[in-house]
């Protein structure tokens, strides 16, 4: 790598200073230290929001030369949003971090592996699907099952990104292979929803997608499920690849834009938060028509739990005395921090009359997944995840329920590695089990 020409650096400074109005709102009070899971593990100021904002400010004002150092610190972040939710002066931390990642990424260039993943695969949903389908057929050669309760496996030989992880394997048949498309009219419920399963539900947890469809059918909700859906774009956004993000957005707009439905429902907290909060901020806004379509879809994005309890008003009555299944609920950051949603997933779990809820300590603290964070920083992610595992096990629950498939992956890994016999479910699965 040669030295970057001065003109580029000036452009880097200029682009970072476009964030100055947002950066300056940080009053350095340090309250983010109280809630940052990474700070709790490392005690390092460079890894908490206040430190990262200071780094961006100092870099933008040319007080600091080490661009790689800043980029590395900036990317050591779960984007869990706990700091933003706890910030006295309301700093828009996630917007700042994602924009800054894009700026630094433009300056440094996307890594070859990410370029391959995003630009050659993710933005081409059909190619992505074909690869995954192939993978599901040959994975048995490389992985072996570990836990029946958790449905987890590990690599036969420790290699590359898999390392010592325990993970649910790719589903034999993804959701879109089982249910390619749907277009049913509103029934008894009088509403129609578009269904956005998200990549992880489609390819790893299709059973969650099936549970959603079963519940929607049971309650007479019309479903619009178009094929050729693309990823919501969060992996590209968090890697600072705005081009791939906008490509994905175009594909999704083609699927859903102008569709006739009341809500865009997902069983994935991260997809919901991305569509609802990040699409409007990061969509290329050149064309007003596109902007309007994005805003409309963003406003319709809704978590499946909220659809059931708040829109359809399906709520459990009383407190379960049965207690055949002790269930503890983990709050995904993208429900609790992004939307303040916590009661709804618990209510949905309790729609199963056998379920007795037991609360774990720090239920709303991040599980340590952070999407691709766990791929890049498995050590810190594992330490944060181990705490979550301890809190889950301490409840004595036989099942942990959470409304985000990314959390489900991380928690499965943590429980499986510790040899725990605790099942991991989406709340909607618990409810769907009770519907014949």
């Amino acid at each position: 790598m040669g030295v970057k020409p001065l003109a580029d650096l000036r452009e880097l400074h200029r682009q970072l200073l476009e964030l100055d109005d947002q950066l300056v709102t940080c009053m350095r009070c340090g309250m983010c230290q109280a809630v940052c899971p990474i700070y709790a593990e490392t005690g390092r100021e460079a890894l908490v929001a206040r430190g990262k904002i200071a780094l961006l400010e100092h870099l933008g004002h040319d007080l600091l030369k080490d661009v790689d150092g800043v980029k590395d610190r900036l990317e050591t972040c779960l984007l869990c949003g706990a700091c933003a939710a706890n910030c006295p002066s309301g700093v828009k931390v996630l917007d700042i971090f994602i924009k800054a990642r894009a700026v630094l990424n433009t300056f440094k260039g996307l890594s070859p592996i990410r370029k391959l993943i995003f630009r050659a695969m993710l933005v081409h949903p059909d190619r992505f699907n074909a690869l995954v389908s192939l993978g599901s057929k040959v994975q048995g050669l490389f992985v072996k099952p570990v836990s029946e309760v958790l449905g987890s496996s590990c690599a036969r030989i420790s290699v590359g990104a898999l390392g010592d992880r325990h993970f649910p394997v790719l589903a034999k048949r993804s959701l879109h292979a089982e249910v390619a498309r749907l277009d049913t009219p509103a029934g008894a419920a009088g509403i129609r929803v578009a269904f956005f399963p998200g990549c992880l539900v489609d390819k790893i947890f299709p059973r969650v997608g099936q549970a959603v469809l079963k519940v929607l059918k049971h309650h007479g909700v019309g479903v619009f499920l178009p094929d050729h859906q693309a990823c919501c774009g969060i992996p590209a956004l968090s890697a600072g690849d705005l081009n791939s993000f906008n490509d994905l957005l175009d594909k999704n707009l083609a699927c859903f834009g102008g569709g006739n439905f009341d809500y865009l429902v997902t069983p994935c907290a991260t997809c919901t938060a991305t569509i609802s909060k990040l699409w409007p901020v990061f969509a290329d806004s050149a064309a007003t028509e596109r902007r309007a379509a994005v805003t409309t879809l963003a406003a319709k994005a809704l978590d499946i739990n909220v659809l059931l309890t708040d829109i359809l008003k399906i709520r459990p009555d009383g407190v379960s005395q049965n207690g055949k299944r002790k269930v503890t609920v983990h709050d995904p950051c993208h429900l609790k921090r992004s939307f303040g949603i916590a009661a709804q997933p618990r209510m949905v779990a309790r729609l199963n009359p056998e379920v007795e809820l037991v609360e774990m300590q720090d239920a709303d603290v991040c599980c340590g997944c952070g999407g691709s964070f766990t791929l890049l920083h498995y050590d810190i992610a594992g330490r944060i995840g181990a705490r979550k595992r301890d809190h889950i096990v301490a409840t004595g629950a036989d099942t942990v329920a959470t409304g985000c498939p990314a959390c489900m992956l991380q928690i499965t890994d943590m429980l499986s590695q510790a040899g725990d016999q605790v099942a991991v479910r989406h709340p909607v699965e618990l409810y769907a089990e009770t519907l014949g």
Partner: protein
Amino acid sequence: MLNPSLIEQFKHIAGPANVMDGEADRHCYSYDAAVLTAVVPALVARPETTEALGKVVRLCGDNGLPLTVRGAGTNLSGGTIPDPRDGIVVLTSALNRIIEINEADLYAVVEPGVITAKLATEVATRGLFYPPDPGSQSVSTLGGNVAENAGGLRGLKYGVTKNYVMGVTFFDTTGERIVTGARTVKCVTGLNLSSLMVGSEGTLGVFSEIILKLVPPPAAQKAMMVLFDDTAKASQAVAAIIAAKIVPCTLEFLDNFTIRAVEDYAKAGLPVEARALLLIEVDGHPAQVADEAARVEAICKQIGATGVQVARSAAERDKVWAARRAALSALARLRPTTVLEDATVPRSKIPDMIRAVEQIAAKHKLLIGTFGHAGDGNLHPTILTDRRDEKEYARAEAAVGEIFEVALSLGGTLSGEHGIGLAKSKWLEKETSRGTILYSRRLKKALDPKNILNPGKVLGWE
């Protein structure tokens, strides 16, 4: 630039992972919560044991390296901003063990990096109480609290950090361990060096262990929100409550500007026309609490409160306090830069102080909200500005100076609880005397001949 062999020595003492000498990491210890220019340290060390801490201090002492101890970096007067000449920042975040909580003898022994709220929670689970509650308690460290003599909302009845320090063990600049105070209520052994350390802002020694007093918690409490159409009446109410021999555990004040900001932000249903709002809480034995709450209510009504809302349940109590908790957030969101001051006056002078702050705001065309601890006269005039706007920020700095002038003219003090640090050292002589500064500097010179312990803080530069 530090020479590489010195960096190696720091790594040898604290462990390589606990020494940060890269540019990006060092920049993250160049500031604290005060609105001041950042100063980047030459190296940051994070000792994990008190033994390593002592060796780090000695290494700095031997080499004449200026050393600034940092807990959570929440200081509001620049006390944790390092020295520009190869400054070393020593972090206490890995010295975070609660060594002992003694329920029979009512004390706790802690390392300096223990988070204030963590100790408070831990002692509460054992049915005890550590009262000092600075606003940053969820992140601030006890070492920092002692070094700054931090206050909080409960100052009027329960006092501040200094009232809970029974003993301090610290290192001098040669790395010698100094032991002062005891685990006993009474102790007159040796010079009272613990008291000298409290509020010394890192200029006289580096704490390794602190003994803190604990008390039994009150059995009951009752909170109320009282509204006034005149600041003077609110102040009269405060005086009348104290004159009636009632000492509320908290007696907080919000001015009209802050009330409106909170209402805009939190929509808590506050009456925006009120000129002043008092949040009063009494605690103690349930019978005493009931009696005192009734008398406080009667006193406020007699003085002409326009409304009194007594919390009837825990939920209502929480609602009363929500307004106070939202005060800083509500104000901070109005403008990019928040300058939070803590000039303090005798409590009878609060109306004069409020009036003066309003005049200063008008004169300099600034937004200033004032809230704070009415019971002990410790107000927080909060200037909402934008440090990037040079002209406006110059007016803000002039306003700060005038606020100090007024506070001193009313018989008050520059700082109730935030410390002097870098931000206020130039005003120190005005409140005290030339002799005080010289005496303090001689003391500092005797204990720290090379002037390496947080130089420039409190006493300024010779």
